[in-house]
C-alpha cells in the first residue's frame, strides 16, 4: 500500500514538473548543474574548526518554498563558476532583494528597520557573530509563509526555532502552563513572539520592549482581559483591571521601576496555575514571592484574594465599605450643595427686598 502511494506521489510530481518544463528550461538546467553536487544527501564540507557543514539542498523543499521560482544564483550572486573558488558569502536578504523600491517584486515591509533596532539587530551590527540574522529564524532554502506549518516561524515551530539559541528559556517555558498547553496543541496560549514581539524584540530593560516593566501588564492583557478566551479556561478577566487600580498598577503606570507587575508575582516563562506546588503564587509560596519586595511577609499574605474588585459583591466587606462611603458621599454632598443654593437664593431675595 505504501509503495503504491509513493508511486502515485512521484508520478504526480513528475507530471507537474513536466508541465512547467518548457518555460523553465534554462533555469532548470542551471539548478540541475548545482544539484549535481548539492542534491546528494550527505554532501558536506569539513570546516577549519572541525565542524561539518552540511551542503545538501533538498530540491523538493526549495521548489515548494516561497522562493520556489528563484534559482540558486539569484540569491548566491557571488557564485560564478564550478567548482567555486574563494569564500562564499552569506546571502543578504535585505540588501539583495527585500529593500524598499526593489524591482524584483520581493515583499518589503518595515520589518527590516524594526530588526535593526531590536536586540538581535543591535548585537549583529555591533559585530556579535552569535546574533541571529534573517535566515536563522526564517530558514534558508526552506522559507515558507508563517501560516504554512512547514515554516520555521510558524506558530507550531516557533518555540523550537527560538530554542536553537534560548534553550534554557525554552525548557522553562515547556513546563509552564503556557508551554504545557502549547504542547497539547492549544491555539490560545502564547508562544515566544506573542509576548516578546517578532522583529522588534528588545531587552526587557528597554522601555520600548513589549515586556518592559511598564508594558508587561499590556502584553498579558492582550489575552487575559478577553472574556471570550478566558472563559474557556475558567480564568477571571478582572485581574488586569484590578491590577491597574491597585497601587502596583498606578505606580507602574507612572514609570516606577521597582513596583510589581504581572511577572513579578506570577513568573515570566515559568508561569504556573496557583494550584501547582511549584507556582510562585501557590499559597505556600506567597510569603516568599511577596517577600521579594516586602521583606518580612508572612503567611497572612496568602489569606484572602489579591486581585480585589471593590465594586463587586464577591469582595465581601470591602464591597460594603465601598458602598457605604459611596452613599455617605452622595448624601452629604447633596445636603451641602442644597444648603449652599438655598443660602444663595435667600441672600439674593433679601438684597432685593432691601433695595
Amino acid at each position, binding site marked *: 500500500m505504501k509503495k503504491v502511494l509513493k508511486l502515485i506521489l512521484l508520478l504526480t510530481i513528475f507530471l507537474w514538473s513536466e508541465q512547467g518544463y518548457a518555460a523553465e528550461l534554462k533555469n532548470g538546467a542551471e539548478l540541475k548543474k548545482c544539484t549535481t553536487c548539492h542534491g546528494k544527501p550527505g554532501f558536506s564540507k569539513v570546516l577549519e574548526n572541525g565542524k561539518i557543514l552540511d551542503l545538501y539542498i533538498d530540491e523538493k523543499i526549495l521548489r515548494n518554498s516561497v522562493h520556489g521560482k528563484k534559482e540558486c544564483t539569484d540569491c548566491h550572486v557571488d557564485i560564478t563558476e564550478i567548482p567555486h573558488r574563494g569564500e562564499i558569502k552569506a546571502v543578504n536578504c535585505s540588501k539583495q532583494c527585500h529593500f524598499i523600491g526593489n524591482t524584483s517584486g520581493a515583499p518589503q515591509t518595515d520589518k527590516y528597520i524594526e530588526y535593526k533596532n531590536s536586540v538581535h539587530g543591535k548585537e549583529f551590527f555591533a559585530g556579535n557573530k552569535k546574533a541571529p540574522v534573517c535566515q536563522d529564524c526564517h530558514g534558508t532554502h526552506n522559507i515558507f509563509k508563517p501560516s504554512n506549518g512547514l515554516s520555521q516561524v510558524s506558530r507550531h515551530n516557533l518555540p523550537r526555532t527560538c530554542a536553537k539559541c534560548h534553550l534554557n528559556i525554552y525548557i522553562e517555558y515547556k513546563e509552564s502552563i503556557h508551554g504545557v498547553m502549547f504542547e497539547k496543541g492549544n491555539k490560545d496560549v502564547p508562544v515566544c513572539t506573542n509576548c516578546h514581539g517578532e522583529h522588534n524584540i528588545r531587552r526587557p530593560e528597554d522601555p520600548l520592549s513589549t515586556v518592559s516593566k511598564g508594558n508587561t501588564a499590556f502584553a498579558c492583557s492582550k489575552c487575559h482581559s478577553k472574556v471570550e478566551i478566558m472563559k474557556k479556561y475558567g480564568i477571571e478577566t478582572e485581574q488586569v483591571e484590578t491590577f491597574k487600580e491597585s*497601587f502596583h498598577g*498606578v*505606580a507602574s*503606570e*507612572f*514609570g*516606577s521601576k521597582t513596583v510589581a507587575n504581572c511577572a513579578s508575582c506570577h513568573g515570566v516563562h515559568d508561569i504556573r496555575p496557583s494550584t501547582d506546588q511549584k507556582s510562585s503564587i501557590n499559597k505556600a509560596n506567597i510569603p516568599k514571592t511577596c517577600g521579594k519586595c*516586602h*521583606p*518580612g*511577609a*508572612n503567611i*497572612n*499574605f496568602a*489569606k*484572602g*484574594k*489579591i486581585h*480585589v474588585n*471593590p465594586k463587586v459583591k464577591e*469582595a*465581601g*466587606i*470591602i464591597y460594603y*465599605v*465601598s458602598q457605604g*462611603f*459611596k452613599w*455617605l*458621599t452622595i448624601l*452629604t*454632598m447633596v445636603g*451641602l*450643595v442644597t444648603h*449652599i443654593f*438655598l*443660602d*444663595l*437664593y*435667600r*441672600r439674593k*431675595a433679601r438684597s432685593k427686598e432691601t433695595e
Partner: protein
Amino acid sequence: MDDIEKTKKKEEEAKEQKAFSNNDSRLKEEIRQSLIKDLEKKVDDGVDGEVTEEMVDELMAQFWKAKEETLEKFLKKKRREEKRALEGVEKQEETFTRFGLNFRIQHMTLFTSVLLLIFTGMPEKFHEAGISGFIINALGGIKVITILHRIGAVGLSAMFAYHCTIYTIFFRQGRRDFVELLPMPKDLFDVIQMIKYFFGLSKERPKFGRFSYIEKFDYWAVYWGCMVMIGSGVIMWFEVESINLFGKVVVDIAKEAHSDEGLLCALAILIWHFYNVHLNPRVFPMSWVWWNGKLTKDEMLEEHPLEYERIMEKKETKS
C-alpha cells in the same frame, strides 16, 4: 487785683464778640461804621462822601470773602479731625478676637497639609485622567508623589495629635471651644429655623452662639476625616506589618476607605468650606479671620449674635 480785672474785661469782650458773631449783619455794620470813621479822618481834604462809600463797600466785600473762606477752611479741618478721632474709637471697640494665634497656626498647618495631600492623592485615585499624569510627571514621578504625600500625612497627623491632646486638654481656650463645639439640641432647632428662613416661612435667621451648626459640622467632619484618613493611612504605610498582623483584607479595606473618604474630604472642602469662607457673597473673596483671627462688630452681630451678647454682658459686669 489787676489780674481779676483783666480776666473780667476779657470775659466781657468775649461775651460781646459772641453776641456780634451771632448777628452777621450787626457785625458787618459795626465794621463798616468804624472803617468809615477811620477813612473819613484820613481823606478829609478834597474827597467827597460818595468816594468814601465806594471804598468802604469794596473793602467790606473783600474782607467778608476772606472771612468766609477762612471759616470754611477751619471748619473742614475740624470736621476731619473729629471724624478721625471718632473712627479710631469705634475700631477699637468693634473688633473681636475669634481665634487666637495658637489656633490659627493649627489651622494653617491643617490646610497646608490637606492641600498637599489632596494635590498628591487625587492624581493617584484618578490615575486615568490626563491631568493626573501631568501633575505626577510635573512633580517628578510617582516616587516623589508618594514622598510628598507622606510629608503631608506627617503634617496632618502632628496637627491632629496636638489638637486632640495638648490643645483640647491643656489650653483654656481649647477646652472652652471643645465644649462649645459639642452638638446640642439647639443646633437641630437652628437647622429647622434656617430651613424655614430659606423657604421664607420665617423672616429671621437663627441666632448662633460661638459656633454655628455649620462650623460644628466642619469641625466634626475634619475630626472624623482625620481619624479615617490617618488610621487607614498608617495601615497602608506599614503594609507588611499590617498584613502580617491582620491579613490582607485589612489593607484592602484601608485602601478603599482612604480613597473614598479622601474624595469626600476633598469635595467637602472644595465645595462646602470654600463656599462658606470664600465664595459666599458676604465674605467674597475671603474671610480674613484665618489670618488675623478678628471679626468686626457687624460680622459678630450677623454670624454670632449670642456670643456678642455674652461678651457685652461680661464687659458690663466687669466694668
